[in-house]
């Protein structure tokens, strides 16, 4: 440990704070990290290969299992990608409902992030408070599609069923109780001196590095780049929604925390607009029973809670299954930035950096 | 009651152990510890004589010796660490060159 003797330490694959089976190989000089190598693949299930052998309808169930904390966003990406591949136009009501559920799912994902990130840094009560609100959201998902986590919420061409009776009412009830809860988290964390010490200036990644490394989502926005696919390439009903892209110039962990909290408030706003402006009409487009594609390729990105989630399809002539399916998982690309964020910093900052990147291993390893 | 010569015997034996440690061990850390042991033997004598004469001077001196011991350990350990960093060893046998 004295004479340039570095300790090599394995953070994971079984470790309380790596959020799954992430393994990070650290070279430590005392407590300072000199080299940081993320090693992934422990959860590799070959989703892309499986989807090449399943029809476009069936493939959606695998997207649930990628980013399992934001499965509705994944469903949306899949459904919209396939619709783009076939040129299907979705009814407006379905678009609104999709937008609302996706935003609720963003809330759920950000709440989970807040919970685990705070727990990593040591604040254990925020964990339970955030899970309490997430529970309401999961109840809403259960009411809509029957499952809480692996939702399989949407269908190609729209939705399977319309909203259940009473859904709007309970969603509105959640809307009413949610904003005070965010204030509560802020009271516990935002001004707390220990929280600020642990996050301000930690794991910095400026805008140039973010763009060069392909980092998207709240991490990019916390570096001051107002890039949001909901605004840049509007999908679903986002073009009709009125919301802002929260950004911060500091590009550190604290800025990401603030950006995500502000995003939660914006999502709350979007859901309110969806509830108020929900149009009447059918929820399913007219599509044939068996979809047969033409030769086509499509890359469809959406703004998942973690960043740009892109689905790349190659269609075969007359094929009912995708010839090639590829997922641009936001966590996969974002995780590349971990070594740049942490090298030269302390061991505890690695934990904060993993937390602030908000990685989900199901999505990274696919 | 305790006899003074018991104290003296034990302290001289402690001192002897310390000398033996300095002379026969090759680990610089153990040598440093042996020196501490000798200082403690001296302290024991101080206190025994203070007790014998009924004056606190000996105890005050023992306290001073303790402070010196602490200073000595700080410097000694710093030396050992510096040595280890330079030569990758704490064995006194291996330190036979003038230049590091």
């Amino acid at each position, binding site marked *: 440990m004295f004479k340039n003797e570095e300790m090599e330490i394995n953070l994971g694959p079984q470790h*309380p704070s790596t959020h799954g089976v992430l393994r990070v190989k650290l070279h430590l000089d005392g407590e300072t990290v000199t080299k940081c190598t993320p090693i992934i693949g422990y959860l590799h299930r070959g989703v892309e290969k499986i989807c090449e052998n399943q029809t476009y309808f069936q493939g959606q169930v695998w997207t649930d299992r990628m980013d399992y904390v934001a499965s509705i966003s994944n469903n949306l990406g899949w459904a919209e990608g396939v619709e783009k591949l076939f040129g299907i136009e979705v009814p407006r009501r379905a678009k609104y409902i999709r937008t609302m559920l996706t935003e609720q799912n963003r809330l759920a994902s950000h709440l989970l992030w807040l919970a685990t990130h705070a727990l990593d840094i040591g604040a254990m009560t925020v964990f339970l408070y955030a899970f309490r609100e997430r529970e309401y959201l999961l109840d809403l998902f259960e009411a809509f599609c029957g499952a809480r986590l692996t939702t399989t919420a949407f269908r190609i061409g729209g939705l399977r069923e319309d909203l259940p009776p009473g859904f709007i009412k309970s969603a509105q009830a959640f809307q009413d109780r949610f904003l005070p809860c965010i204030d509560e988290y802020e009271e516990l964390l935002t001004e707390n001196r220990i929280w600020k010490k642990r996050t301000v200036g930690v794991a910095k990644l400026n805008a140039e590095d973010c763009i060069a490394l392909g980092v998207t989502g709240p991490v990019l926005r916390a570096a001051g780049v107002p890039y949001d696919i909901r605004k840049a390439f509007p999908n679903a009903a986002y073009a009709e929604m009125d919301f802002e892209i929260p950004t911060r110039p500091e590009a550190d962990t604290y800025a990401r925390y603030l950006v995500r909290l502000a995003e939660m408030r914006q999502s709350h706003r979007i859901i309110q607009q969806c509830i108020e402006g929900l149009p009447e009409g059918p929820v399913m487009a007219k599509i044939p029973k068996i979809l047969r594609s033409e030769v086509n390729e499509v890359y469809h990105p959406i703004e998942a809670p973690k960043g740009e989630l892109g689905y790349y399809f190659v269609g075969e002539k007359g094929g009912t299954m995708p010839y090639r399916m590829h997922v641009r998982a936001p966590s996969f690309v974002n995780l590349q930035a971990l070594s740049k964020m942490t090298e030269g910093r302390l061991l505890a900052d690695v934990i904060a950096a993993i937390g602030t990147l908000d990685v989900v291993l199901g999505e990274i390893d696919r | 009651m305790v006899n003074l010569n018991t104290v003296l015997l034990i302290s001289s034996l402690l001192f002897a152990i310390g000398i033996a440690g300095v002379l026969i061990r090759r680990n610089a850390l153990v040598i440093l510890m042996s020196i501490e042991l000798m200082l403690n033997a001296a302290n024991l004598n101080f206190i025994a004589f203070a007790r014998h004469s009924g004056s606190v001077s000996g105890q005050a001196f023992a306290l001073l010796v303790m402070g010196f011991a602490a200073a000595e350990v700080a410097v000694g350990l710093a030396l050992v660490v510096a040595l280890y960093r330079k030569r990758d060893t704490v064995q006194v046998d291996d330190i036979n060159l003038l230049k590091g």
Partner: protein
Amino acid sequence: MPTMNLTQTMVMGLIQVVAVLILIFVMVPLLTFAERKVIGYIQVRLGATRTAGGHVGITGALNRGMWAMGKVPMLSILRGLPVFVADILKLILKEDIIPAKAERSVFTLAPIISVLAAFGVFSAIAFYPGALFTFPARFPIVGGLPFMGFISDVNVGVLYILALSSVGVYGIVLGAWASNSKYPLLGGLRSAAQIISYEVPLTLSLLTPVLLAGSLNFKDLSVRLSTGADMHWLAIFPLFVGFFVYTTCGFAETNRTPFDLPEAETELVAGFHTEYSGMKFGFFYLAEYTNMIVVSCFASAFFLGGYYLLPFGLQRFIPASVPFLGQPSILFFFLKVFTILFAFLWVRATVPRYRYDQLMDVGWKYLLPLTLVNLFAAALIRFAF
């Protein structure tokens, strides 16, 4: 106090040691239970409400019957109480694993050192300044002897306690080293550095009451401080700052949040006791909670008024003639101890944890200057007025 012969002294000492041991062995499990409950309530859940097998056997039948009647079985605060027995049973019955590459002797020695250092402290702590009760004359050896509120009345009690608690660090460091594993080693190094650096402000903050009261005897010190005998009224300020610094350092000494870096589970899995299991782990656990109790006893005795009702020497405003409130009582002492223990749990549930270098910063850059200034102020008050 009647004079005692040697045998009587030894027997009385034995009785009192056993009493204190019983106190520890009751308080520590209750403390873990309270930790579950308090943190549970803070986190809008119920905490422990049932032990394993709550649905079988007699208690199971009882529980189910009461649920069927639409009643919550028993008082809900007490329903999880058997958990602490289950905890101890689990620790005792669990397989005691010594890793193959571990240094066996040191590995076994480390938890023992921890526990001994933690327990030994109690021999100088006075829970009550005088005799609690007198044994009736019909008892064979101890008849007519008083049962004191302390084991021994050490002249340099404060120093003794500080010295013993500084020995406790060896348990952690040796256990970490003997595990021959990397996470424990990092935890052990952190712990050694942390405890050594926080011992300085801790000791200095304790010097404030020592300076103000002019004694090193635990009992004398506490009584003099709380009654405010020959103390200027300004002394409340250095006492208050001293209390603040002492509690902060106490959190650090006992490795509690926000200073729980040696066992920061999100960084070092479980820190220095990662490789421990069974009763060896239980010893570390016991030592940590015992240390919490010790810190609470200290803070309560020196800053919060000890055996009297009001803290910081405010007791002088209540004349000794007031029947209950003016008199020293063991109840007041334990009330304060429990309050501080509750604060331990409350803070744990609220704040995040520091980073290692920030922890050192807090210790050396803020607490140490603060205590020095405080000490100087106390000396000024003592000698100027």
